[in-house]
């Protein structure tokens, strides 16, 4: 990704909009007693489009903003989301995205990773109350929601950041002219 000041401003606007939407909308809407968490999917999409560095930096920034707005211990969300963005970026740098299913599947897998990672960080910081097994249901449902939300998020971000994306040349198969009967 070629990050010009204009693209940087777009990235910042995407991060702020994503965080506001998460806190004001997605966190407050429950389906099957679980709300969706779109922030890991947002970071995964940025990592897939911009590479590991963009993924890690945007993950750190988005996590930092969330922790600031929720007055949570600073650094916890940053650590988890920067790892998520970095992994998504590494995937993009090492493998080619052949199928349209890759972004949503990656959003699902890495949301699972992010939610588990966030739980792990919280447990390491100390949880004073018993933990219900329903945490697992929450974790799995959030991943399923990320699968369905991941694809539109990826498409919207690809459109928003198109001027900055390094387009890989498309490999098109040329048809050999055929002669009837040959």
């Amino acid at each position, binding site marked *: 990704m070629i990050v010009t000041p204009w693209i940087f401003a777009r990235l910042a606007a995407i991060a702020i909009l994503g965080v506001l*939407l998460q806190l004001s909308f997605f966190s407050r809407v429950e389906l099957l007693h679980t709300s969706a968490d779109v922030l890991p999917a947002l970071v995964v999409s940025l990592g897939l489009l911009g590479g590991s560095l963009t993924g890690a930096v945007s993950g750190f920034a988005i996590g930092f903003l969330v922790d600031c707005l929720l007055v949570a211990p600073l650094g916890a969300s940053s650590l988890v989301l920067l790892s998520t963005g970095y992994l998504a970026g590494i995937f993009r740098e090492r493998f080619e995205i052949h199928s349209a299913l890759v972004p949503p599947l990656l959003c699902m897998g890495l949301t699972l990773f992010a939610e588990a990672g966030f739980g792990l960080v919280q447990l390491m910081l100390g949880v004073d*109350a018993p933990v219900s097994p329903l945490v697992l249901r929450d974790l799995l449902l959030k991943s399923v929601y990320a699968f369905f939300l991941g694809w539109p998020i990826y498409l919207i971000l690809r459109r928003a950041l198109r001027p900055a994306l390094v387009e890989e040349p498309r490999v098109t198969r040329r048809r050999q002219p055929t002669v009837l009967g040959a």
Partner: protein
Amino acid sequence: MYRKQVRRRRAVLTLLIIGSFLLLTVTYGQSSGGLQRGVSTIFSPLQDVADRALKPARDAISWFDETFDARGENGHLKTQLEQAREQAVAGQEALQENAQLRKLVELDRGPALAASAYEPVTARVIARSPTVWQSAITVDAGSGDGVRVDDPVISGDGLVGRVASVEGGSAQVTLITDHASAISAKVVPSGVQGVIRPDVGNPEVLILDFIDSSRGVGVEQAVVTSGWRAQGLASLFPPGLPVGEVTHASIVEQKASEQVELRPFADLANLDIVQVLTGGSRG
């Protein structure tokens, strides 16, 4: 060239990880810093606008979810209604209990708040934390409205939580389902005392812990804040605020683990309007 890029990438990643750990080390266990307060103050008007703009969409999705839930709950509620009718007819005691619960629900006019110096400030919920590990909401009333840290927060149904940090026009509220929450409470009318703790990951269940196992607690009994005061120290919550009702209280479990399960009265998943009880004295 490629190696230089890889080296730069690794350096940035290492820097970010170290930064995260540094932030965690410096800020963990402390109250909100100036930076967090500043960011929160800048973003609270934006959150307020986003909350109002997105309310119709939220309501539409909630309607689908509630309809889905309502079908499952219908049979269960019918059974409950029959039981409640039988109990109401059965004796005067149940009627008295019912009247007590009704009084408790009328929070603002009830004795729990009328006798205290608390001034309720009505606020709208503008944000909510995305994970089950932190149960917190942001409300659009802050220090400018007289809100202070540790003020109790209630909804029309009962206790919701307490204020964790305050800015000029907004405040963060730690819900009673947050892992750091602990509330001294008692069962009415039996008077059994205990500490309410959350069951992390299951916002529909609270645990009343450390109860006196020799005195039985029954299902559907209400639990209210005990509001103790001793040697210059006082509970953060005034006495008599309804918290929940006992949903699971087997004798064996009470004897073995000295705890029972509650369902919070307040619908913590769908909070929209809450009241912050400001101005109370806390010893």
